[in-house]
């Protein structure tokens, strides 16, 4: 389904992505982890063709999407939705219009410029918003929403594209733990219910372990780990992040604690 062959991207004299290759043969939930500057974002941006690759091939169903140009490139972008860390919505337009932007590649420029969408398109956008649980925000401006809600609008825009692949570039990095969970659960649901492949850049290991079918670890532009979440031991993590023995992922973990000791203690103190 997706085959990445020797993809390289050079900025100046430094390779941001250095000769990476891997294959994904089913609509899996793939997490890419690594520290900042490891080349995760550059790789996703190359898949969406926001950044050009220096060399290599990315084959999707046998077609090399890195060689597409003009209309064909934009058609590919419309089938390969991207979700950004900072949501990248149009802040002054209402939520439904932002979702309808997912169709821009398939509708005429003139009609879309005057915001003339067909009734079916509008109803579909509202249905998607309903599915993500934010239909009551449909008429509000995107900027009036909370971060978690805005990210769900961005996911709705991605779904409006009806894509084969959804790319998510640090989708939860600017959200609080509660909203992060809602957004990740939503992505997982789309992955399972619709059978769309999701490739997400993540920067917390616990998120990668919990949601991904497969984890790819990158360091300095190269793939240094490729396996299942179970294989992602602390030793491997130290390797990926280039950390020494003092590395402790719990120190900066943003996951909600699963143990209830603290709750019990608090309750006992209140009852005492």
């Amino acid at each position, binding site marked *: 389904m997706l085959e990445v062959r020797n993809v390289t991207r050079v900025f100046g004299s430094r390779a941001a992505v250095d000769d990476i290759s891997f294959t994904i043969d089913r609509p899996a939930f793939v997490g890419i982890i690594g520290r900042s500057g490891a080349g995760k974002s550059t790789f996703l941006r190359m898949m969406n063709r926001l950044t050009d690759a220096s060399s290599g091939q990315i084959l999707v169903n046998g077609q090399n999407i890195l060689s597409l140009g003009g209309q064909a490139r934009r058609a590919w972008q419309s089938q390969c939705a991207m979700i950004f860390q900072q949501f990248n919505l149009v802040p002054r337009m209402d939520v*439904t219009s932002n979702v309808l932007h997912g169709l821009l590649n398939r509708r005429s420029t003139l009609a879309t410029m*005057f*915001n*003339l*969408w067909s*009734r079916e398109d*509008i*109803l*579909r956008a*509202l*249905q*998607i918003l*309903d*599915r*993500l*649980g934010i*239909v*009551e925000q*449909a*008429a509000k401006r995107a900027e009036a929403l909370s971060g978690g809600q805005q990210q769900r609008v961005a996911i709705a825009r991605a*779904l409006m594209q*009806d894509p*084969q692949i959804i790319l998510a570039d640090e989708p939860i990095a600017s959200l609080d733990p509660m909203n992060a969970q809602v957004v990740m659960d939503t992505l997982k649901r789309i992955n399972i*219910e*619709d*059978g*769309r492949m999701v490739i997400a850049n993540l920067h917390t290991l616990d998120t990668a372990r919990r949601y991904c079918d497969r984890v790819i670890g990158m360091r300095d532009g190269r793939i240094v780990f490729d396996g299942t979440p179970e294989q992602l031991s602390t030793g491997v993590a130290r390797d990926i992040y280039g950390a020494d023995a003092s590395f402790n992922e719990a120190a900066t973990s943003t996951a909600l604690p699963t143990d209830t000791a603290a709750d019990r203690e608090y309750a006992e103190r209140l009852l005492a």
Partner: protein
Amino acid sequence: MTASTIGSTGGPPHDLAQNQHAYLELVRRRRLYGGVLLILFVALMMSGFQMAQSRNAGGFIDGLPMVLAFPTEVISEAWEKRANLPGIFVAHIPSLIETLNIAAVSTILGGIAAMLLALLSTRGLSPWPRLTGVFRRIMDVCRAIPEIVIALILIYILGGGPVPAVIAISLHTAGALGKLFSEVAENADLKPVEGLTSVGAGWGQRMWFGVLPQVAPNWISYGLLRFEINVRASAILGFVGEGGIGHDLKIAMQWGMGRYDLVVGIFLLLFLTIVIIDTISDRVRERLVKG
């Protein structure tokens, strides 16, 4: 993987129906307003055009082919005498320098005044937030009076020469740049200012260290744009007796037929000056932004 797989799983169904109805209603209303505005706009443009047409001495359509007649005459004559152009350039460099000097001095003086006015009229930065309205009105006055009127009055009082031109252009620059500067300053991030307040810095220090570094690239690029506009303004003031290249241009135009090479030469000189200023301002701005 089609729209049909997107089923409603969250929220009761009547909720969706309600929201759908409400949003479709909103869309209908927006389209209605948009349509009415469009019709109004077209009708106003049409009627305005007809009124202007009926008051014109000649007809717009009849006159259209003649628009190019005068420029063609000027340029064809200048082309015949193109050998004179280098000589004209050299001969008018001194008066061009006078014009540029008037523009530069008034941009600097007006720009300094504009900085103060801008900071004083920006809510959130001003030391006296209640007086922002007063400083805004002062800038409005500076912009409202045409510089040519101020120049004519000052020529009457001070006599001809560059000083009345500098004062007239500086006043207008202070008003126009002040407005633009304050819009930039309004968007400045207040966090550095808060940080400086927390260490006990005074107003001047807060503006100098907290605001100026943020707004400098935009202010300088507006300042250089204003310098370009002031070159033109200073050339126009030459027409009413301020000297400089505008004076030469006026004399050349008055002679009319036979001296069109002079007119074209002076225009070319002004055009080249603007191009050079524009190029320099691009470079300066790029270096400031990239640091």
